[in-house]
């Protein structure tokens, strides 16, 4: 009996000692190693659609308006750019005289070597009710008060010139409208000079157009992938959404990653953030957005790219290409593939 008792007590003590201390407790790094964080910033020289607008004085009154627009994306299918006069409740489609300008490099700056560009007319001005665009070219639209009157359009009933994307006779109050210009207060019909702006919102027709703000960060998890978190960024204009791209230095390699999503863990689509509010979309901004991308899913490696871009793109009507309207960007850290790889999943201990 005494032997049995001693064996029992000894065994219990051994069991207790074994069970009492477990050195695998503690924080466990998901990637096994730290991630690198890079800022997601607003692009300094943003190429958003728009351009200068000039009114021409005939006698004592401004009689004609000329819009010189750039950064309009080439449209696909039957979609065309259409020109309207509109206010916040109604619109009338108008005809314009249209021409295209192409950039011609005539020399280089003797100090910094930047090219000196002259814009040359591609073809003579001609009447148009709709038009398409070419990457890198400028579109010039002209019309006069007399032409509008002859076409039966009372310009004093409207306040804005709006360029929309659509096929057939799309409604500018619901269609993507990359460019608008407020030419007068309601009832006056006077033309003025100014700047055509990006992102027409009929509900805020007196506003100043779309403006980028906010930012975020991208965390690069060595060779596994990367996670993006954008915070308090500008809500896309109506008809547009944010699309993510990975590009290399010369933008010869471009990979489309898809639209911006809500943050983890939901990762729900923000394709309709332009028209639908929600937990992460407020009236004027997207509060939080994200996207997680694994290199294995892309069948690519980080050394093939130099930047992550977020561009504004019309939901329909444009080709599946990198838009010119890149709004936010983050650099891909160099030599990311040389960071330590995790080999034991998320159970690898921090610091080991």
């Amino acid at each position, binding site marked *: 009996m005494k032997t049995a*008792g001693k064996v029992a007590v000894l065994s219990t003590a051994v069991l207790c000692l074994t069970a009492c201390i*477990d050195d695998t407790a*503690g924080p*466990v790094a998901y990637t096994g190693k730290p991630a690198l964080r890079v800022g997601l910033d607003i692009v300094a020289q943003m190429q958003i659609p728009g351009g200068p607008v000039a009114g021409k004085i005939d006698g004592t009154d401004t009689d004609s308006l000329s819009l010189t627009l750039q950064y309009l994306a080439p449209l696909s299918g039957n979609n065309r750019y259409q020109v309207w006069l509109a206010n916040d409740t109604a619109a009338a489609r108008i005809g314009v005289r249209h021409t295209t300008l192409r950039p011609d490099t005539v020399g280089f700056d003797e100090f910094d070597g930047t090219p000196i560009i002259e814009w040359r007319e591609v073809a003579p001005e001609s009447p148009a009710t709709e038009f398409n665009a070419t990457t890198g070219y400028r579109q010039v639209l002209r019309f006069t008060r007399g032409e509008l009157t002859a076409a039966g359009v009372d310009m004093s009933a409207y306040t804005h010139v709006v360029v929309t994307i659509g096929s057939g006779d799309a409604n500018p109050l619901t269609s993507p409208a990359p460019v608008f210009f407020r030419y007068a207060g309601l009832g006056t019909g006077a033309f003025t000079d100014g700047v055509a702006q990006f992102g027409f919102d009929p509900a805020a027709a007196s506003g100043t157009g779309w403006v980028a703000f906010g930012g975020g960060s991208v965390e690069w998890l060595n060779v596994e992938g990367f996670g993006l978190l954008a915070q308090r960024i500008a809500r896309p204009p109506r008809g547009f959404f944010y699309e993510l791209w990975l590009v290399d230095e010369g933008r010869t390699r471009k990979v489309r990653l898809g639209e911006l999503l809500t943050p983890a*863990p939901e990762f729900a689509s923000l394709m309709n953030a332009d028209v639908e509010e929600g937990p992460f979309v407020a009236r004027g901004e997207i509060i939080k957005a994200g996207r997680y991308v694994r290199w294995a899913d892309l069948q690519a490696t980080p050394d093939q790219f130099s930047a992550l871009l977020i561009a504004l793109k019309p939901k329909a009507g444009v080709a599946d290409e990198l838009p010119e309207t890149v709004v936010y960007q983050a650099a891909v850290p160099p030599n990311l593939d040389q960071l330590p790889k995790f080999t034991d999943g998320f159970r690898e201990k921090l610091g080991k």
Partner: protein
Amino acid sequence: MYTVVVTGGQTLFDKASGLQDALHASVEARYNIHRNIAIGPYLMISRPLTDETYFPLVRMAFGDTVYHLLVNQQVTMLEPGIEAVISVPVGPFELQGTGGLGIWLIAKDPQRSWRPGIPGDDPNRKEGPSVVLGGALVYSFGESGGLRVGVRSVMLRDFDREFLSTSDPLLPSEHIPHPRPNVPAPKSTINNLRLEAGFHFSPGGGR
């Protein structure tokens, strides 16, 4: 008339518990009110690790260096109670059936997750009622000692898996998805299975 039972073994925790399987030890003191019926107190002890994949991913940023961490801890689990045992001799062996009522108490690792509490509401420990049902096969060396192997089902009520989390809600990881997004749903009653082997002996000899 007294029997002391000392056992150890492996606890297979309910998949909804957020606890990893762990070793345990127990000690029982039984008083035979009948040759085949005994009652007495028991105490089970274990120190399981929480399963970090059940809890939120946290993010700690130091400049441009960021850690996405899953955090676990080793908790201390005590389960005292009162049980009744019915024994049925079968040749040199004895079959035992056990049933008991008790409480469970889990204390968190104070070095990892201590938080200040108020009297009557200690955020560092939690307790609730438990029910034990089990069976064992006993082989006696003689009248005073023997070996036993058994299995016990321990039901813990008022269980709160969220209590075991050490992930600071102020440090959420929003850049990357959780590595294990689909864990079993939490339950307020969990059923753990204990596989055990041990010894019994009667200090006075005989029962």
